[in-house]
């Protein structure tokens, strides 16, 4: 999940902070200190994530476009000038543009807004923006909610009392509300000082930037992994089951299936699965924790020499063209697969399905999938030339079952013509003739459309009179018989109008001379 840091550089951020010590701090120094901490954390734990830095006052500027280079971000922090007044709305519009340009509207993004809680004055101030919120047209809509999945974290360089002495806190809370409640406000606990800023950013890190570590298991094979970006809790049903579901830290592989069988299923989110190394004592070494670069390198070197199940798994999935089904929680599954990000490079990735016993209807219930060897007959055939998937639904959908719909006259006309066409090719088309006839009969009975049965009977009788001399004698017999049966059905009496009753061809025998005497 990319992050945009939006830093307030209005004059109010230069207000000094009274600290008993000798050095004089301004709020912007506190902010920079907190952000440094965030960047350092991300540099260690979120190496792959992109972060951008925006500064704003009455104008906004993209100081650092999305980057993984946290040094650049860090440097930018120390090169910030002071400007005029706070104008939050235009900055948020800026964020919208930047994110949409880089990531589009589908990638979730975190926005970390750092401000002192002075919301500006006059036009462009947050109060003004909120006051005019209801009078907006589509062309100048308020930037919240963000047009992409988002979390808005507001880091206030002020404590709660200060914010509550004005309506600042209310305004900021309105902002979160406008973002559909996605986000949170952080304030400094106690006096403004480096230590308390640290603890505030610590809370942000805990909430939004803790890496997700898990153990990937396949029978006895295991690997410690980081799942990146962190899978977010998912709420299945607000009404009945409003508790957000969180995925297990034990990711157990339950089986493997062909890519063709799972066929690009819909997923909630995608994640990289990165192996992390554990050293002998069980401490983590590969990713994070160690600050010392040298230690980390040597640890990585060691890790590089230990055979890792992730490597085996990734390679196998790639070669076999399969995915691994992984259990994420009770009645919740996902898949592990190899994703090529260029011709030469590919990664082990995990996608999460929607929770539930049957996330992919064409595979049926997940719990009913089992090993091939348990099947009496190999469902893939001896030559691997077939597949048990997709499963047929118990009830076919309307488009797969030749339903009868006569809402448009053309629907009815087509069905009648089908019967007529086959009637003219009797006796060759006897089977199709009666099949179509029975289909029409069933629908007419269900719709209570008995006039149609009478009409078609009349039509068949007419056809009988129009038969050419060359026609097979059976044709006349069948037409008469069919017309008669339809007439009986059109009386609606239960004896002849049974829905499950089928008109069957008249048994005739023209093979021998006996037919001539009939």
């Amino acid at each position, binding site marked *: 999940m990319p992050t945009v840091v939006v830093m307030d550089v209005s004059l109010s951020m230069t207000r000094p902070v009274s600290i008993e010590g000798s050095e004089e701090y301004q709020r912007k120094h506190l902010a920079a200190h907190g952000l440094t901490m965030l960047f350092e954390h991300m540099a260690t734990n979120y190496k792959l994530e992109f972060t951008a830095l925006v500064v704003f006052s009455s104008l906004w500027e993209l100081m650092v476009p999305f980057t993984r280079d946290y040094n650049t971000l860090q440097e930018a922090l120390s090169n910030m000038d002071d400007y005029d007044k706070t104008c939050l709305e235009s900055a948020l519009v800026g964020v919208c543009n930047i994110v949409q340009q880089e990531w589009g509207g589908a990638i979730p993004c975190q926005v970390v807004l750092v401000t002192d809680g002075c919301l500006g004055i006059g036009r462009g101030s947050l109060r003004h923006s909120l006051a005019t919120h209801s009078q907006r047209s589509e062309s100048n809509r308020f930037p919240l909610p963000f047009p*992409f999945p988002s979390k808005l974290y507001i880091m206030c360089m002020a404590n709660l009392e200060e914010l509550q002495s004005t309506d600042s806190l209310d305004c900021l809370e309105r902002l979160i509300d406008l973002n559909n409640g996605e986000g949170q406000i952080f304030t400094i606990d106690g006096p403004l000082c480096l230590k308390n800023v640290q603890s505030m950013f610590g809370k942000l890190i805990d909430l939004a930037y803790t890496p997700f570590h898990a153990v990937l298991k396949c029978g006895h094979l295991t690997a410690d992994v980081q799942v990146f970006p962190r899978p977010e809790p998912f709420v299945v049903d607000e009404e009945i089951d409003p508790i957000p579901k969180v995925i297990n830290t034990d990711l157990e592989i*339950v089986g493997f299936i062909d890519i*063709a069988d799972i066929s690009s299923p819909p997923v909630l989110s995608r994640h990289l699965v990165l192996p992390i190394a554990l050293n002998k004592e069980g401490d983590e070494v590969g990713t994070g924790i160690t600050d010392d670069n040298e230690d980390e390198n040597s640890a990585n070197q060691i890790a590089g020499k230990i055979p890792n199940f992730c490597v085996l798994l990734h390679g196998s999935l790639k070669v076999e063209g399969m995915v691994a089904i992984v259990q994420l929680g009770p009645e919740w599954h996902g898949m592990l697969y190899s994703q090529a990000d260029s011709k030469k490079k590919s990664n082990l990735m995990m996608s999460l399905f929607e929770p539930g016993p049957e996330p992919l209807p064409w595979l049926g219930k997940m719990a009913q999938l*089992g090993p091939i060897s348990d099947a009496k007959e190999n469902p893939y055939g001896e030559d691997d030339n077939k597949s048990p998937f997709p499963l047929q639904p118990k009830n076919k959908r309307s488009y797969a079952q030749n339903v009868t719909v006569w809402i448009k006259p053309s629907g009815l006309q087509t069905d009648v013509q089908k019967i007529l*066409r086959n009637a003219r090719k009797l006796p060759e088309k006897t089977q199709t003739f009666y099949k179509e006839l029975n289909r029409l009969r069933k629908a007419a009975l*269900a719709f*209570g459309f008995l006039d149609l049965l009478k009409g078609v009977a009349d039509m068949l009788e007419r056809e009988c009179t129009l038969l050419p001399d060359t026609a097979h004698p059976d044709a006349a017999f069948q037409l008469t018989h069919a017309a008669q049966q339809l007439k009986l059905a059109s009386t609606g009496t239960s004896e002849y109008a049974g829905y499950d009753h089928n008109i069957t061809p008249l048994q005739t025998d023209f093979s021998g001379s006996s037919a001539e005497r009939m």
Partner: protein
Amino acid sequence: MKIFSESHKTVFVVDHCPYMAESCRQHVEFDMLVKNRTQGIIPLAPISKSLWTCSVESSMEYCRIMYDIFPFKKLVNFIVSDSGAHVLNSWTQEDQNLQELMAALAAVGPPNPRADPECCSILHGLVAAVETLCKITEYQHEARTLLMENAERVGNRGRIICITNAKSDSHVRMLEDCVQETIHEHNKLAANSDHLMQIQKCELVLIHTYPVGEDSLVSDRPKKELSPVLTSEVHSVRAGRHLATKLNILVQQHFDLASTTITNIPMKEEQHANTSANYDVELLHHKDAHVDFLKSGDNHLSGSSREGSFKETITLKWCTPRTNNIELHYCTGAYRISPVDVNSRPSSCLTNFLLNDPRYKIDGSLEIPLERAKDQLEKHTRYWPMIISQTTIFNMQAVVPLASVIVKESLTEEDVLNCQKTIYNLVDMERKNDPLPISTVGTRGKGPKRDEQYRIMWNELETLVRAHINNSEKHQRVLECLMACRSKPPEEEERKKRGRKREDKEDKSEKAVKDYEQEKSWQDSERLKGILERGKEELAEAEIIKDSPDSPEPPNKKPLVETDETPPVEKSKGPVSLLSLWSNRINTANSRKHQEFAGRLNSVNNRAELYQHLKEENGMETTENGKASRQ
């Protein structure tokens, strides 16, 4: 949409009173003369549907679309009303399909125009509808059972769609009052019942339908709240296709549907088989499918969809799918669809094309819980070397018959026989002194001598078999056969080794690590380089390993993997397995917890030689062998 919103339960109440037998006065030509027919035939007179037929086919169309898009959890109860209420189906999932409803409707038949109108009323049906809404569905029951003490969180809402021919606005008012009164009464009943649920919310949709050309006696009225529980709306609609259009609009509103039109689908012409023309097909689906579209601001909204439908449709251009189905594409959503015009030729061409992927029926043979699969993975991974150069047996074609069955839960007599044959075959190979694909990686010189190679191989095979001896008594028998057959008795082996020891002592000391002490060897960066450099030749030599794939970035820079994954046993070559890493780790962990018996520590095949110190004076090393065979 919430599971238990109003859309969970829909009750259709269709009027079956005598006046519904009246014609809708919209004619249908059904005797369309086909080309090249004899002149002078007068086509049969057009026929017209009754109000009843129009009502039934429109409501069936509503259900068709609903069932296509929500095959589960959206339920319909169909009631027809004349001198009494006839409830045609129940809330159970088995009753929820078009065939059931059609059969039940056929049994009811069209209304009898000669019945006494005084005895007939739509009211019977409306009362039955309220009654049926109080009945719990299997989904509600399941959710309540699951939630236990929070059972009251399961909602009971529903919708009544009533198609009738009303006499006036005040008649309509009377029907509404009746529904409200009935709900009030039944809620009282339901409060004291375990099987019934109180109705929390009911949406009444009254559709007054009348023959085309007549004036409507009833006026339209938008949705209005009659009480906290009941809302009502009135639609006055001409029969025939107008009624069908109305119900099509309603099903879209009720189930949050949206429309997408696929344009430019090439299809072969019926008449001219070798030409193709482009067609459009309009589909309905849940409107969530459009969310990302609308968000992207890239609206493909085209003004109005073709005839009838009221809504905007998003147009997508057909793109003939590539046949490659072994690629995974990123997909954020999949939605069920229903064609607006289900049996038009373009629609059926499209759906048949999509359905005609080769499909196979499943006959319950896969009806085995996932737990069995997990269990199988557990067995298959008990012994699974992850590095090619650290396994001998999985580089040998000759071992495959044994390795592929030993992981099974149970063995047949034939399996045991095959395992025994495999073992005899290995003995034979040893007797003939056949070479083994033992890795020479990390060793200087030529690597281990032939008999040493066989000892390594036998040890590894034993490890594999031992990992499964608890599966069954037959597994045990395989081990017994193995133990009886495996090379020389240990004493003899020891003696031989002793003789050899001196000449290649240096060689030995490095090799000693090799056996299964992978953890140590992996740390030996010298050796690893060797693996990396010689890995390729190795693979070629072993001639069993498939292409090594690219590895993901972090730890391992070089693929050192076995590549058979799926039920590995199915494939005839490239066997499988690891576990020594695992078992070693466990063993190491366990051994830290207690002092290992000196005897076992130094044992060979669980036999410890006594008076070893005497031999050690001769420069004997015993530990390496002991480690390997200890389980």
